[in-house]
């Protein structure tokens, strides 16, 4: 709210008959005190308006409540107008209008959102307008509802505006909080871990890569439209965990993507097992994973250039390859092909036909 500087008026200590109001006013206006007193006396004859005005200045001069002074002055003006022969109704209306204006002038207030709304002043102005118009005979049935609607707009409008502004601000705050939470949960934690494991380059590399993948997915991933995640997201998660556990580097490429569904999750689990095998047994330091999704099928390739093995020589009870990869893919309605030879690396090809949706 803007603080208005009060006009330089004070009751006179030296030149006083009753309370020094007239003397003070004369000093302020730079006129003779007698002249002021004469005006007040004449006004007092007009239904006591002069007395009321004197009271108003006195109140004001006491630096107490300028708006009370304003009200009294408004009443004084009303009394004067009645004494001059205006109808009581229109005087009452005018008084209300003037009082409303005075309140705004004296107390300040603003219609802008976020500012303090001078509700009493607005109410007075509207009431004054209604009374004034209705006593002037030019009243139509629209005046009262119109005034009411105007009042509502004036009073509620800024409030709604304010709410909308608050909402935008709140959304921005929430976004900020999300970013902060993300940075705290992932980036800062990772940095702390990196400092603790500074002597272990493999672990630091794995941490950094996992963090990179996480942030990248957050920035560019399809996360929002697919709250349960997508195939590529899930492969990225699996790759990150395996990098962290076994220290191999996993390079993930993709063409297309699908939302996660039951059988797609089985595919992810099989791919995860294949990545784990590559990371644990191949001795390769890099594993390439490629997911290719087209209208007919989903294919995931897991490839390393490691030591390789003889696929036929794997005993049937080797749980990982037999059950976790072949069995899982079969149960999901897909297929797994493992191509490997000693010294030539390994490639696991997982395919899943797409169900017509």
């Amino acid at each position, binding site marked *: 709210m803007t603080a208005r500087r009060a006009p330089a008026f004070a009751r006179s200590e030296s030149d006083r008959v009753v309370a020094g109001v007239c003397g003070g006013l004369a000093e302020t206006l730079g006129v003779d005190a007698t002249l002021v007193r004469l005006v007040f006396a004449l006004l007092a004859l007009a239904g006591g308006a002069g007395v009321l005005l004197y009271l108003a200045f006195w109140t004001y001069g006491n630096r107490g409540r300028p708006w009370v002074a304003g009200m009294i002055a408004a009443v004084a003006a009303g009394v004067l107008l009645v004494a001059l022969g205006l109808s009581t109704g229109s005087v009452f209306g005018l008084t209300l209008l003037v009082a409303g204006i005075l309140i705004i002038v004296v107390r300040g207030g603003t219609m802008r959102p976020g500012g303090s709304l001078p509700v009493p002043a607005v109410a007075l102005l509207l009431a004054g307008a209604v009374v004034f118009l209705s006593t002037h005979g030019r009243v139509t049935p629209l005046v009262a509802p119109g005034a009411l609607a105007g009042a509502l707009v004036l009073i509620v409008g800024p409030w709604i505006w304010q709410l909308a502004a608050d909402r935008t601000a709140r959304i921005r705050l929430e976004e900020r909080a999300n970013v902060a939470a993300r940075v705290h949960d992932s980036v800062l934690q990772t940095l702390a871990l990196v400092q603790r494991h500074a002597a272990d380059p493999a672990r630091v590399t794995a941490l950094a890569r996992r963090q*990179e993948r996480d942030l*990248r997915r957050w920035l560019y991933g399809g996360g929002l439209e697919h709250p349960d995640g997508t195939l590529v997201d899930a492969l990225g998660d699996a790759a990150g965990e395996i990098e962290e556990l076994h220290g191999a580097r996993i*390079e993930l490429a993709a063409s297309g993507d699908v939302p996660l569904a039951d059988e797609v999750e089985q595919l992810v689990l099989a791919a995860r097992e294949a990545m784990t095998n590559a990371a644990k047994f191949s001795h390769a330091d890099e594993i390439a*994973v*490629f997911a290719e999704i087209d209208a007919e099928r989903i294919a995931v390739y897991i490839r390393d250039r490691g030591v390789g093995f003889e696929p036929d020589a794997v005993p049937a009870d080797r749980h990982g390859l037999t059950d976790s990869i072949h069995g899982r893919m079969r149960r999901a309605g897909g297929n797994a092909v493992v191509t490997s030879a000693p010294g030539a690396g390994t*490639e696991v090809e997982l395919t899943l036909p797409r169900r017509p949706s």
Partner: protein
Amino acid sequence: MSVRVVLVDDHELFRAGVRSELGEIVDVVGEAGSVAEAVPLVLRLDPDVVLLDVHLPDGGGEAVIAGVAAERPGVKFLALSVSDAAEDVISVIRAGARGYVTKTISRTELTDAIARVAEGDAVFSPRLAGFVLDAFRAGEPVGADPEIEQLTPREREVLQLIARGYRYKEIAARLHLSVKTVEAHVSSVLRKLQLSSRHELTRWAHERRLI
């Protein structure tokens, strides 16, 4: 004679890292941190290869290519990025970069990629191969020239193998081709990517993820 390289990246730390990694093998003749710095520098130095960050503070890597290509057609650009956003990568390639690798690439692979680009070949990382397959996915060609609007089955096969992590030599062995032929297929894909009008790339980028 070693390859003359200019590094354009707004992260000084990253430039220092690359410089110290590559210093012995290639000749790093200059560095720039923005489009405004890079364009006059490249014009003046006329290097063999510019290692170009996809994202720069005052414009993308494509702004550097646009500012240089007309006057220095011999300069080759290799895009380098941590960005995963396919549309960014594809737009730098379309602007004229001969390849794209991620910043996590190992030193030997990066050296290899620079040498390859310097000789005029294309360098596709597995990730870029995935993006490109996506961009050329089935769909009716709308351009006038179907030659450049679609990949041949062979080109598709080569790209799939690149995405699966195969090197050119391994692809050649697997498809019973010469390495030169594999390189020719990749260069042809690059040319199609740069010339094709079919890919309304922004739209593609939005629709690309899910089929």
